């Protein structure tokens, strides 16, 4: 494998509280302490750029197997690379669901074949995501699962959720929960409130999320299991997580760009690209999510990348599916809505995108410490560009950010010591080939 020298970049590695200009070396697919006196095969000129551990997205939907018209593991993992994401954890709401060792291994295998971003399966909590009996969690771990969730089908049965939190302790893996009391969201299309009232659209009250978050934090407390709140979206839920952490409960939470950059007023356009679950909430909720990120109540940024083919999304609002693609807009929306307004420093944002999700998923990644797999994202922090869905590597185009003028972009992305994505211009072969 080629030896790579990344020169003159601002190296930000929150896992080691590092933020300094310098060189980074890669040899044999791993991060190296230095060049060891050897000449590099490839030199990457990273002056004025940020050199970070490869970004990790703990919440994506790659739709394979079963819904390849929306996305495949190969196109989704390529979309990840284009967004600077070197590892993704993909949700098990596929057809069939990832609830057996065989299906988990299929995801791992397709990820290796694609050779884009690293792909890790998240297994189901319950068989068939039906919320009735525990899936074979141990078998899923054997197949490569890095966490468990029933995702869009929240575990409603409190007894089952309790057992899942208890049983998963033997693997020290996290139970991820889409927190929603389904009885309160029947027929819902958007956040319940002034806007839904005005538009005559079915509402999903914030309380549906709050109640499930409160219940599950208490279950995590009595079991000692690891609970992760997916795509947190309400002010009260953020407060509950903050309280839970103070009490020493093993609870973490993630936030998605749409929940800190958009509000439910956007639904006035009746555009299904604003239909997601949890729904866009109010300005107060957005402010609370940002506050949660600032004080660490929320410690992971992710996308909930949810590709849907155009013909499915271009429907009446109640017929269109929930969700938006996010991998290629994660970084710029984080820059324009969290870093530039001063809510998060670069170091904090990169922490939430690297070492924190790595810890969440027990991955030996998210760091530039010598010896780890060389997953590196080189970011141009100031470049201005316009989001154009036609340029997406994802198979789907369902984004609310089309036409947005943004700043910050993944410039060059290295996975396992290979340059797998670059906008070009900074990578050159060294004059002297190493022996």
């Amino acid at each position, binding site marked *: 494998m080629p030896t790579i020298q990344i020169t003159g970049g601002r190296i930000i590695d929150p896992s080691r509280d590092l933020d300094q200009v310098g060189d980074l070396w890669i040899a044999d697919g791993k991060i190296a302490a230095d060049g060891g006196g050897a000449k590099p095969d490839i030199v990457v000129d990273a002056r004025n750029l940020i050199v970070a551990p490869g970004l990790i997205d703990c919440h994506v939907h790659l739709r394979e197997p079963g819904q390849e018209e929306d996305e495949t593991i190969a196109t989704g993992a390529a979309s990840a690379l284009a967004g600077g994401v070197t590892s993704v954890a993909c949700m098990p709401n596929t057809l069939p669901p990832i609830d057996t060792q065989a299906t988990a291994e299929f995801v791992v295998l397709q990820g290796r074949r694609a050779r884009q971003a690293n792909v890790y399966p998240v297994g189901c909590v319950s068989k068939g995501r039906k919320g009735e009996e525990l899936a074979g969690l141990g078998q899923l771990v054997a197949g490569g699962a890095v966490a468990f969730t029933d995702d869009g089908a929240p575990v409603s049965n409190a007894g089952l959720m309790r057992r899942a939190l208890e049983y998963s302790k033997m693997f020290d893996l996290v139970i991820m929960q889409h927190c929603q009391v389904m009885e309160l969201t029947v027929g819902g299309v958007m956040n319940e409130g002034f806007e839904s009232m005005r*538009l005559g659209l079915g509402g999903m009250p914030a309380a549906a999320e709050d109640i499930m978050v409160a219940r599950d934090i208490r279950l995590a407390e009595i079991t000692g299991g690891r609970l992760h709140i997916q795509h947190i979206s309400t002010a009260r839920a953020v407060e509950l997580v903050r309280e839970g952490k103070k009490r020493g409960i093993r609870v973490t939470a993630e936030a998605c760009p749409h929940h800190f950059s958009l509000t439910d007023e956007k639904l006035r356009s009746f555009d299904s690209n604003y239909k997601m679950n949890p729904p866009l909430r109010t300005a107060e909720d957005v402010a609370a999510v940002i506050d949660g990120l600032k004080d660490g109540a929320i410690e992971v940024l992710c996308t909930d990348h949810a590709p849907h083919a155009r*013909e499915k999304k271009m429907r009446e*609002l109640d017929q269109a599916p929930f969700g938006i693609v996010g991998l290629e807009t994660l970084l710029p929306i984080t820059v324009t809505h969290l870093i530039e307004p001063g809510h998060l420093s670069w170091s904090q944002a990169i922490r939430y995108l690297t070492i924190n999700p790595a810890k969440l998923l027990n991955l030996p990644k998210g760091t530039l410490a010598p010896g780890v797999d060389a997953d590196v994202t080189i970011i141009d922090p100031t470049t201005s560009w316009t989001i154009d869905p036609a340029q997406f590597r994802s198979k789907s185009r369902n984004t609310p950010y089309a036409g947005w003028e943004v700043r910050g972009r993944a410039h060059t992305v290295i996975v396992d010591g290979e340059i797998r994505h670059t906008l070009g211009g900074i990578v050159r072969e060294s004059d002297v080939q190493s022996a």
Partner: protein
Amino acid sequence: MTTASPAADSRPPSAGGPDPATPPTVWTRKHLLGLEDLSREEIYAVLDTAESFSEISKRSRKKVPALQGRVVFNLFFENSTRTRTSFSLAAKRLSADTQDFTASVSSLSKGETFIDTAKNIEAMGCDLMVVRHPTPGAPHLLSQHVGSAIINAGDGAHEHPTQALLDLMTIRRAKGRIEGLTVALLGDIGHSRVARSNIWGLLKLGAKVILCGPPTLVPKGMERLGCEVAYRLEDVLPRCDVINVLRIQFERQQGGLFPSVGEYSHFYMMTQERVRKAKPDLLILAPGPINRGVELTPEVADGKHSAILDQVTNGLAVRMAVLYLLTGKMAAAPSGD
């Protein structure tokens, strides 16, 4: 000889309104999607135009050539009899060719989307689509994908602009004005497109609006629109100049939003006894179809306070006015936009 322009006809004496002389030239819209978007002047332009057209329905030859050669499609993705019939007849009185297309959303969901359906219809040649759909915003979505003018004939619980316009016309004819009146909307406000369009229209024209129904049918936040919310009809009856009795859909009871139809009627049905507690010149409207013995008693429905059949008559004039104003916009820009 009949003239194409209603403005050239002898205008009937206006039933009032602060500015009955407002010329329809304030109308520049291509679509009518809701009353939330309309200005007070635009609403009066429709009402005044409708007054001109209401005279035509009294003639022995009930037809003018205003829309000759135009094609109006009724695209109804939800059951409707009176609205569809009213639009068809309105278009025919203006000499347009009309065609109905009726389909349930469920039958479409197997393959063709409703946007495809509309594009197919447009390919047959269509100037104006009258669209009813169970989903809020469906006509708005359609307006982005087809070139025809769109009239929203009811989109889910969102808006039903021509119904509110005919309600406003009926109130203005009976009371001589709208500004300063107290109008109560009674019943299922939350699921009602008629309620939302009425709220926008009435507030814009200066009426006071009271929303009255059980708390499960009056969503929180409605007072933020500028309405008063009341749960007990008796508390507000004496103040009302107009009560618009909304239809109760029985599936709401099955959804557990109120315990029984009987209990609903006990609290909210308009009876002779309740009418006696109101002002002597109380006007009662109902968008229909009405459930006699549930929302109002037969005596009240057929009584002297009821304007239910006037609403149907005025609905025709309002729909003629809207069709006329929207196609007038086309004539100004024949290439479309």
